[in-house]
């Protein structure tokens, strides 16, 4: 909503209030100021009157003008097509600096002296209204030649744009804003002038009859005006351009001006029939969607508050009888209808859905007063009016003590009453001294309950004046599952950054085509997004890995040698079920080049990567992978991650082909479901005070075997008590033997320790022998 100070001044005397104070007031009462700019014509530009205007002797497109600027008469050469004698125009005198940087100097144009410039609005730094020079009229004030242009309020003004919230339709007009300021500054609104009918004028009944069928939900007033030779006053055109309208018709300029000034919705119709002096018959009834509609010769020509058929919309005013229609309809009603029946609406709906001015007479008076006693304009006497039974304005009963409870701060009764009265509410104090009956004006359709009334009081009283106070609490334990979940994730995140991973956040979205290309799950088409933001983000991700690969790729292109990311986030399967996952990606060298690695950082192995993941999410077991859920996974260097017997994710070297697609160095990935990672409380065991012994045994095994089989066998021996004092065992070396095909050597370290004594060699060897024997029996493998 754009307002200017000069425009506001037509409804409220605010000339003495500085623009900073105005903005402060707006912000305080809940009308947020978006921008505030000074509108000022440059110094040195004065009003001039063109006394003579002749063709330039040497140039067809130029005119030579004699211009009276009071102190002298200037000769100015002008190139505008619309220049003509007797016009009042803006003259930039010698020495004037225009906003575009041009300084006015005496010049010769095709051998004719020119001392000054007749300006267009753009040259003065204003919005364009029409081609050519600005032709002024006395709508800007008394035209005095030689008077500085910026001595007129219109050309020395402040423009303020307010970001209105959706509930404040009543502030969608200069009048509405003035009403608000009037209660804030406690200044009376200037009285609105009623239009007085001229009894000599022709009556509306000669040319128009309006009838209705059934009940209607809107209020309507019709007025007819005959335009013969009417020029839109300069001030109207200028202001309409200030509020952002460009190249609109005469009729639209007049209508928008009245609506922006008063908030009343106005439409203009033009019927050929009327022009021929026959009578027009308009019928109003509800259409099939239940919206009040205007019918002309059984044709629907407009729906109140929603739209209007182009055929009968007026554009030019002159030589026409125009039917003006002022209307009001309940905003909630019209919004519901529009939504329920998917009715198309035009620019009017922005206002009608937020609540336009219900007092139609304000608009009617404003329109007629702008046109009365102007030559070439004939206002027909009388109106056609239709209105539904307007319910008397809302009355709310509220208790003062309740108001103070809601605010949490005592505001005196007198202050409350005076605030409400300044907002044009009718306030009656009940005999019990605590209850107020508040009559809400019709234009505040948004006020329905005591909380709404509180809002009115506190915004005028000033939120800053309310003293803040803490709430008294009853102790309550807030450590619940979601708090523990939050702590668990936080713990994991901090562990991950401790070993060099960067946390990242990527969009929940992915490209369906890319997901499909890499054989990832995708959301069923029937469940997918209707309105994605771009094609590259046209579905929800089913994996975090694709986004992480893209993230790495960007950084590698920026010449990073080592990129490590993790992300915690939601992913979606084909049924669009949400799953929370954590994913890791490790690309390139272990670290950057530095003195520590002698300039030769190392690549990491699958085992290094797995070890890092383990140090973040806790102990797990790896099992050889059989089904590959996507083609990021390397079929020969990948594993399922198992915790407590449950499959919780996978870990893999990035498939070399994907690596090439994204031009990455060697990369490892892991994606793990968060549901099965637990931050268990650790239970300690007694630890032995006796010496532990290490024994390394090397076995020759078939290369088709994996370590897990051996591990399981040894564990079952331990679990069944067939061997004891084995504290732990783990592989420490593995290598291929050159002369033995398909055989590899694996060295396992056994740590033996007793809780009750120092073990001797015999005891150690007997335990190990049992293991060797069992492995030989089971897998036919022996010591090397």
């Amino acid at each position, binding site marked *: 909503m754009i307002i200017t100070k000069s425009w506001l001044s037509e409804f409220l005397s605010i000339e003495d209030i500085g623009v900073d104070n105005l903005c402060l007031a707006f*912000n305080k*009462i*809940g009308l*947020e100021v978006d921008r505030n700019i000074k509108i000022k014509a440059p110094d040195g530009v004065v009003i001039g009157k063109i006394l003579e205007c002749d063709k330039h002797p040497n140039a067809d497109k130029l005119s030579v003008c004699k211009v009276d600027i009071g102190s002298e008469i200037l000769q100015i050469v002008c190139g505008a097509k619309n220049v003509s004698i007797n016009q009042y125009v803006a003259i930039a005198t010698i020495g004037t600096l225009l906003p575009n940087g041009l300084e006015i100097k005496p010049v010769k144009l095709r051998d004719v002296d020119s001392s000054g410039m007749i300006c267009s609005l753009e040259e003065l730094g204003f919005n364009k209204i029409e081609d050519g020079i600005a032709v002024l009229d006395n709508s800007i004030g008394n035209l005095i030649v030689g008077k500085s242009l910026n001595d007129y309020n219109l050309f020395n003004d402040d423009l303020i744009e307010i970001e209105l*919230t*959706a*509930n404040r339709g009543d502030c969608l007009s200069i009048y509405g804003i003035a009403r608000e300021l009037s209660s804030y500054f406690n200044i009376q609104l200037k009285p609105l002038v009623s239009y007085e009918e001229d009894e000599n004028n022709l009556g509306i009944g000669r040319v128009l009859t309006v009838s209705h069928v059934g009940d209607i939900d809107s209020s309507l007033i019709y007025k007819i005006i005959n335009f013969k030779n009417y020029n839109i006053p300069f001030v109207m055109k200028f202001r309409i351009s200030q509020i952002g309208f460009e190249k609109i018709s005469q009729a639209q300029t007049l209508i928008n001006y009245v609506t922006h000034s008063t908030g009343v919705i106005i439409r203009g119709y033009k019927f050929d029939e009327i022009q021929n002096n026959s009578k027009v018959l308009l019928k109003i009834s509800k259409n099939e969607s239940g919206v009040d509609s205007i019918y002309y010769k059984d044709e629907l020509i407009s729906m109140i508050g929603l739209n209007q058929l182009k055929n009968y919309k007026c554009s030019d005013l002159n030589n026409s009888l125009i039917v003006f229609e002022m209307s009001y309809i309940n905003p*909630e009603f019209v*919004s*519901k209808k529009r*939504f*329920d029946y998917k009715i198309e609406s035009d620019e009017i709906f922005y206002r009608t859905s*937020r609540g336009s001015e219900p007092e139609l007479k304000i608009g009617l008076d404003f329109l007629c007063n702008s046109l009365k006693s102007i030559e070439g304009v004939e206002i027909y006497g009388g109106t056609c009016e239709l209105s539904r039974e307007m319910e008397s304005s809302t009355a709310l009963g509220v208790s003062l003590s309740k108001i103070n*409870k809601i*605010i*949490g*701060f005592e505001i005196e009764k007198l202050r409350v009453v005076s605030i409400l009265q300044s907002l044009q509410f009718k306030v009656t104090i009940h005999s019990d001294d605590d209850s107020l009956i508040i009559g809400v004006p019709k234009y505040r359709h948004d006020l329905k309950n005591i*909380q709404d009334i*509180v*809002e009115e009081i506190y*915004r005028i009283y000033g*939120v800053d004046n*309310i003293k*803040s*106070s*803490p*709430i008294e*609490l009853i102790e*309550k334990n*807030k450590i619940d599952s*979601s*708090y523990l*979940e*939050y702590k668990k994730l936080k713990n994991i*995140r901090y562990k*991950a950054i*401790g070993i060099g991973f*960067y*946390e*990242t*956040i*990527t*969009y929940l*979205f992915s490209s369906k085509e890319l997901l499909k290309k890499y054989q990832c799950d995708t959301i069923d088409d*029937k*469940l*997918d997004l209707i*309105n994605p*933001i771009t094609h590259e983000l046209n579905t929800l991700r089913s994996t975090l890995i694709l986004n*992480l690969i893209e993230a790495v790729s*960007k*950084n590698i292109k920026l010449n990073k040698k080592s990129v*490590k*990311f993790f992300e915690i986030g*939601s992913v979606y399967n084909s049924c*669009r079920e*949400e799953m929370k996952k954590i994913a890791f990606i490790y690309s390139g060298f272990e*670290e950057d080049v*530095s*003195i520590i690695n002698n300039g030769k950082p190392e690549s990491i192995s699958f085992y290094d990567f797995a070890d890092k993941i383990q140090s973040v999410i806790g102990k797990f077991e790896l099992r050889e992978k059989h089904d590959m859920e996507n083609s990021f996974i390397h079929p020969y260097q990948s594993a399922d991650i198992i915790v407590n017997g449950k499959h919780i994710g996978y870990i893999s070297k990035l498939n070399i082909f994907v690596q090439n697609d994204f031009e990455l160095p060697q990369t490892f990935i892991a994606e793990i479901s968060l549901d099965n990672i637990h931050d268990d409380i650790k239970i300690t065991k007694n630890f032995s005070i006796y010496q532990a012994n290490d024994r390394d045994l090397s076995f020759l095994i078939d290369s088709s075997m994996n370590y897990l089989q051996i591990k399981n066998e040894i564990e079952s021996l331990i679990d069944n008590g067939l061997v004891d004092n084995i504290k732990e065992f783990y592989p420490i070396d593995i290598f291929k033997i050159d002369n033995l095909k398909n055989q590899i050597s694996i060295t396992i370290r056994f740590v033996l320790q007793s809780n009750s004594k120092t073990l001797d060699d015999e005891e150690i060897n007997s335990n190990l022998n049992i293991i060797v024997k069992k492995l030989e029996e089971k897998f036919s493998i022996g010591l090397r």
Partner: protein
Amino acid sequence: MIEIYNITNLKSLDELRIKVLGKKGVLTNEFAKLKDLNEDERKKVAKELNELRDEFSEKLNLKKEILEKKEQEQLLQKDKIDVTLFSKKVELGAIHPVNYTLDRIVEYFVNMNFSIHTGPLIEDDFHNFEALNLPNYHPARDMQDTFYFKDSNLLRTHTSPVQIRTMLKQKPPIRMISPGAVFRRDFDLTHTPMFHQVEALVVEEGDKVSFANLKYILENFLTYMFGDVKVRFRPSFFPFTEPSAEVDISCIFCNGDGCRVCSHTGWLEVLGCGLVDENVFKAVGYKNVSGYAFGLGVERFAMLIHKISDLRSLFESDLRLLEQFK
């Protein structure tokens, strides 16, 4: 005696000790000769020899100590490095600035006895709009560009549906925050299709909760987040609160004098708040309760606090930005 001075290592020192004090040492020999002398002479010579032996031993021990120290020093010296070569970057990763800010916010509210609630990112119309006093024809809906799915579900546009879900499950008192990702169909310099919010809700029986309470916690919270700033409340409108306000802090870049960041107003808008609208309570079946709610954008906080100028950079996984949070 003089020989002691010339000795430079422990081994030769020990050899000298044996040469003098050993079983066949020079001094030992002299002591052995004592028995051949008469008593007077023996006494005199014995005294001289004792003094000589004591002096020798003392010198020897002193020298030994010096040599031992020297030897240790030489051993340690072998380890000498140029410590100033140290230039390696910290091998730590870093928490993402949005989550770092979120953690700080959560920490405040947990300490103020709020509980944390989370909910699904895919929501239905009822929880995201309808129950929040945003019926489908409401003009405020135009402001929220919503991502819709073909089965008419949607990506939540705020975390408020979590509050609705909590109120439907629990009875008052409620004192909760709902942090998480939200989605709006908007992508330009100052908008990303995904961002993060923390919304808070407090509900008590009766008329216990007032606007003054809301004002208190927000003033306290904003000082915790931004330091010594002024806090200003501007009346505003949200469909789910009444009365509503937008909250500004004095600009942390110019201390309120006016600069480019605050559009020369001296103020920065940081959150929205209000008392919960009775229609919201109606939608979840609460009667005779009072409450407040507020919501903030985590990215906005992170950008202001860490002086990050481009919102979109927060979602670009760019190490040039993220490395600065080590």
